[in-house]
């Protein structure tokens, strides 16, 4: 039987590796002529290489962050626009609706899509409390992506791209004052030791995907393709999104119970200040897609509509 290589750049105990493993444990026994095995910890390649590796069939299936390969998935990157996404469920709804409406077909032409989902909106983790966007002025922050850095610039801060494992040391040494990131990373990398303030606004978010090599998919027997189809698409994406949102809530509750971390919550006035500070980000995103061959305005408008309906 054929063994399908499932690649994750996250270490085996990481959230997404665990999620993939849970999915494999469910699907693999149902396959008749194939089996699946997880290759965690980036042993099949670094995070930015995952999209190339699955396209070339090195991995049959891979966990991919589409924004790590700047420019390859332009329409998907709409997820990064601030204000669209609070929970993963929202972002996942946006991507799957756009996919069903045919907007994303072109940029995933090389792949068979298993699931498209997103992170929750990223919060601000900082050494010193940040209540208003003006508090970020002059600060250096770890940014999750190039677009995240542009959003930070709009608030007078600068975004520094730092590899995930080195963020802790860079905050400790004051190279950056904090990070715009997910709660999952906050706990995994023990950032609460060096950045004990969490601002409860949501800035950017990241799209996420589980992609399969087209030939690998077509090579499967008809029965196995049916099994895979039954365990992929919108239903899988929503299951993962629920896992993400539950995990986020659990970390949130655990941190609040343990104490030592200051949660800075938003009221109508402070939230309005954040909304205003990132208002220009939408235009910046649209302008950034000028050469991408997509109708960026229409995609953003549709994404807003879906987000509002959630």
């Amino acid at each position, binding site marked *: 039987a054929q063994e399908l290589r499932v690649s994750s750049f996250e270490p085996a105990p990481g959230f997404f590796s665990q999620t993939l493993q849970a999915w494999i444990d469910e699907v693999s026994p149902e396959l008749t002529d194939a089996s699946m095995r997880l290759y965690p910890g980036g042993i099949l390649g670094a995070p*930015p290489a995952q999209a190339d590796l699955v396209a070339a069939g090195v991995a049959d299936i891979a966990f991919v962050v589409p924004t*790590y*390969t*700047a*420019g*390859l998935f*332009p329409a998907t990157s709409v997820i990064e626009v601030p204000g669209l996404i609070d929970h993963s469920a929202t972002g996942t709804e946006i991507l799957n609706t756009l996919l069903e409406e045919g907007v994303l077909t072109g940029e995933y032409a090389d792949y068979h899509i298993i699931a498209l989902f997103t992170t929750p909106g990223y919060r601000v983790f900082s050494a010193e409390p940040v209540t208003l966007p003006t508090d970020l002025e*002059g600060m*250096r922050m770890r940014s999750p*992506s*190039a677009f995240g*850095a542009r959003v930070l610039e709009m608030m007078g801060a*600068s975004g*520094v*791209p*730092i590899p995930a494992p080195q963020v802790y040391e860079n905050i400790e040494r004051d*190279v950056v004052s904090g990070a715009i990131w997910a709660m999952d990373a906050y706990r995994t990398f023990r950032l609460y030791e060096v950045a004990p303030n969490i601002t409860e606004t949501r800035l950017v978010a990241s799209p996420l995907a589980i992609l399969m090599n087209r030939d690998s998919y077509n090579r499967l027997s008809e029965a196995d393709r049916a099994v895979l189809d039954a365990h992929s698409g919108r239903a899988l994406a929503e299951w993962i999104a629920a896992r993400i949102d539950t995990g986020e809530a659990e970390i949130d509750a655990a941190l609040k119970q343990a104490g030592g971390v200051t949660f800075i919550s938003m009221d109508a006035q402070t939230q309005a200040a954040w909304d205003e500070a990132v208002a220009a980000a939408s235009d910046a995103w649209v302008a950034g897609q000028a*050469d*991408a061959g997509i109708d960026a305005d229409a995609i953003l408008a549709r994404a807003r509509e879906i987000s509002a309906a959630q």
Partner: protein
Amino acid sequence: MKRGILSHVTLLLAGSCFLLGAGATVWDVILRSFAGRNLPGVIEFTTLSIGFGALLSIPVCYARDQKVTARLLSELSPRLFKHALGILGAVFSTVFAAMMLWITAQFAHSKWGGPETTQDLMLPMGILLTVVALTFAASLAGALYNLVIKLRGALRNA
């Protein structure tokens, strides 16, 4: 001594890339400490500059046969092994250099003119990868050069 000059210039260029990368990082440290600012894109610039320096060094390494090698047999019995193993190593090196050129050239070709850019400085990947492929072309030339030297040495000895 044309080859001497060529490889010397290449090494100088490679070393300058290392210095440039170090300079950017130090400038960033100074700016951060005394002006509270940072140099945009400094990590990516440093990484690319030093990486390019390393790539430039590889062809010279091939040409001068200064690759990391575990010489055991030819030290035990130079008469028996020195030339034979030297040619064997040079042949394998040439094959590997050719494969690496094929690999990097094909990758550069697939990304050429594509939309993909680096994360921070937004440099087009197609151009960067073409530069990588060119250094591996130089490596193949270096490996071939070393193979010719080894063959001549063996002929002279035979």
